[in-house]
């Protein structure tokens, strides 16, 4: 009982630390828009309009499905302190399994079975692409940030080769896959235009929240993430853990690609890359690597992104301005983290010299006013 207030305070501060950077980013983003001679109020109001009102909220939820699954995939890897930055390639490979093999498979296999096979195929494709970074990490301790990133470029190249080569729709002048029949796409949730993938994403978030926080596997992964030395000490198989965590992460991100094509895109063009993972990254950290806590944050970004494209066009801004806001969130998140950590440690967050001159300044002012 006695711990409840402190738990509440802890939760409140976690929420505050997640929300403050977002608010600051919106404010500073507004100032930048103002400096560019455009109207920030109109921009933000239009984002709200095009992202939420009318039936627009459904478009936001459709976008949310792949974003959320990618976010959970990143969370799994990051909780194990494995920095899987190969999400780009893993996502595209997962997508190309559905877009490339889907049309042929649906022609010969009953719909539901084909759907399951294709989505599993997406997950496997994403997982397979993590084997090389996992092997190098486990065997030689090679930095997985570099290897997974490089594998991502290779993956994107492979996807392009496939779409321009064997998987190309011969009837189209530009390289793209055959368009999936709309009857074969994931069905909409009753009464909406939101496909079943959204529900699947929510279920994945809930399941992984449980797995990570309540099961022995989740705890082993957290121990491994906290300290590889401790993991070795308590008898956790580090090599197996690296492969497993990497594969889980890649599988989820690949699955996100499959869901996006099968639920929304219906075909894949060469060089198509929505860069979902880049956008999701800051929110994963804002949610403190919790699969459930990331849901509202991803929801927020989905509205921002859905409404933002039209809003940017109408305000006369570049669509890429959305990435500026995401970048600002990252910067303010880092600053907020730094300040709160220093405060928790009872340290000043200013360099010693700066602090001395600043406090000195204030001292002289207060002394003067006291006189």
């Amino acid at each position, binding site marked *: 009982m006695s711990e409840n207030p402190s738990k509440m305070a802890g939760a409140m501060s976690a929420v505050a630390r997640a929300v403050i950077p977002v608010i600051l980013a919106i404010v500073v983003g507004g100032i930048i828009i103002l400096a560019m001679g455009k109207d920030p109020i109109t921009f933000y109001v239009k984002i709200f309009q095009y992202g939420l009102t009318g039936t627009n909220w459904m478009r936001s939820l459709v976008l949310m499905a792949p974003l959320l699954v990618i976010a959970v995939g990143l969370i799994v890897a990051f909780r194990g302190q494995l920095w899987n930055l190969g999400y780009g390639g893993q996502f595209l490979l997962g997508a190309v399994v559905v877009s490339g093999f889907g049309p042929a498979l649906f022609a010969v296999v009953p719909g539901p079975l084909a759907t399951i096979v294709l989505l599993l195929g997406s997950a496997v494709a994403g997982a397979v692409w993590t084997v090389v970074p996992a092997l190098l990490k486990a065997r030689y301790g090679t930095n997985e940030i570099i290897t997974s990133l490089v594998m991502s470029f290779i993956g994107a190249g492979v996807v392009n080769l496939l779409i321009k080569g064997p998987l190309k729709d011969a009837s189209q002048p530009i390289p793209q896959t055959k368009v999936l029949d709309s009857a074969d796409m994931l069905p909409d949730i009753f009464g909406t235009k939101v496909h079943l993938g959204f529900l699947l994403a929510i279920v994945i978030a809930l399941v992984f929240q449980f797995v990570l926080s309540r099961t022995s596997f989740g*705890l082993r992964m957290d121990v491994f993430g906290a300290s590889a030395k401790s993991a070795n*000490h308590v008898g956790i198989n580090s090599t197996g853990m690296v492969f497993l965590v990497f594969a889980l992460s890649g599988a989820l991100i690949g699955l996100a690609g499959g869901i996006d094509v099968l639920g929304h895109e219906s075909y894949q063009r060469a060089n198509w890359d929505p860069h979902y993972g880049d956008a999701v990254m800051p929110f994963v950290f804002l949610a403190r690597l919790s699969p459930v806590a990331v849901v509202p944050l991803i929801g927020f970004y989905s509205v921002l992104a859905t409404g933002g494209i039209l809003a940017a066009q109408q305000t006369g801004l570049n669509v890429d301005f959305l990435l500026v806001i995401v970048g600002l969130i990252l910067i303010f998140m880092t600053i907020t983290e730094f300040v709160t950590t220093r405060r928790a440690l009872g340290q000043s967050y200013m360099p010693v010299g700066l602090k001395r001159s600043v406090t000195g300044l204030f001292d002289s002012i207060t002394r003067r006013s006291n006189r």
Partner: protein
Amino acid sequence: MTTLATTTTGIISLREITKAFPGVVANDQISLDIVSGQVHCLLGENGAGKSTLISILAGMQQPDSGTIEIDGNAVAITSPKVAVDQGIGVVHQHSTLIPAFTVLENLMLGDPSLMLDRKQAIERLDELSGLLGATIDPNALASELGLGQQQQVEIAKALWKGSRLLILDEPTSMLTPQAIEHLAASINRVKAEGLAVIFITHKLREAYAMGDCVTVLRGGRNVGHISVEQLAKLSESEAQNAILAAMFGEDLAKAGDDAAELAGATAAVRETAAIDLATRKVRLELHDISTRGRGGDVDVVDVSFTVHEGEILGVAGIDGHGQSALAEVVAGQRASITGTVIFDDGDITGKGVLERQRLGVRYVTDDRLHEGTVGSMSVAINLVLKRIGQAPFWKFGQIDSKAVDAEARRLIDEYDIRTPSAATRAGTLSGGNIQKVLLARELTHGARFVVVNKPTYGLDLKTVRLVRDILIDFAANGGAVLLLSTDLDELVELSNRIVVISTGRVVGAVDNDGQGTAERVGQFMTGAIEGRDR
């Protein structure tokens, strides 16, 4: 060329130095004078504030309040560079030499000039070698030196810029009895040159033997000072009583004889009961165990020994001579490339940590913070860390928090772990309580054999006593202990037999039966290490 140009017969005086960290006042209005030509002993338990005071003098920390005066002038030591410019040199407890560099390169590291002047540096090293009474080969790699010689190089480094004050932070903690005598001779020569020396120790007999005056810190305060005149008048036992009274205050009566012994007032003697090894079953047997290590670790080479039921087998050796590899290979964390490990007549060479854990082989690591515990997790989780996924704590793969909490509360009571609650993050506990968490976890639930690596390193004296008693009890109740330690007194106090390890090989074994064990162990260590390069 004058040897120590900046030296004056002055006084460095600290006035009301206060430094607080969150939750603890490390230094509370400490005032003391450091006089040139004297060895000033600074005594106190771990956590008494010695290190903080030193880092303030060395410019690594800034005091919250208080002043430092050198020759009557107030000086703000705002950075290590200022400390060096003021002639304050520090020899830290652990080597700060770069192993891959030669002695000369190590000494010239702090040289601010654009071009390195080797000739002048060699001249300076010659001067200092003469001063210290040591012969130091300028072109030897730091990694090739014995520990005693490394320390001489560290002292030379501290005196490099013509020091007025030499600070030695627990310089004897890693040395053999023979090397300590060398060090004492060097300190006397430095003192004779008119330098001030601060000598930090927690061993009373060293303080009396080497110090001209003594200051005792407790809980961040200066609780006792014995001046030069007073110390000269006191006999050794009178001085020790005075220091003990200051160190322990009102706790002295409670601690009783233990206090004197823990504070290293007397030479250590064995405290465990003698056992007849012939009648005891062999619990653990190593046959020609060798490892192939990762990175810069020292491996063990052809190590063989037996540990009997009820026995504490000590392993003596300088830190980093293969102790971790030995502990890990016994615990199952590291594979051996040759040899066999026999436990209770069964071959466990191929078994991993979890299987050995189930058989009763346990390991209390010396890296309590980063290996033994996960600081960001609760005390309760840390107490069941080696039983993740096992009943009764996990049911159908899901954690049963009630069972974990019940076990945690049982162990917290049994081992008197001071923690606000079982849900407190383990990283916030003091070092002593973290060690209790480790001991509780390892010695519960069917432990038959435990490897402990430096079990009392960095702990306060009361916890040291407690940890040693726990180990003695464990052995007396039929357990077996492999005790790896760099503290000779500890080994002599606890072990039935002591083997000496050097560069991964067992170089000698000593039965701990009566006087002179420490010296015999020291001879093995010296023969193996110092002998090579002297």
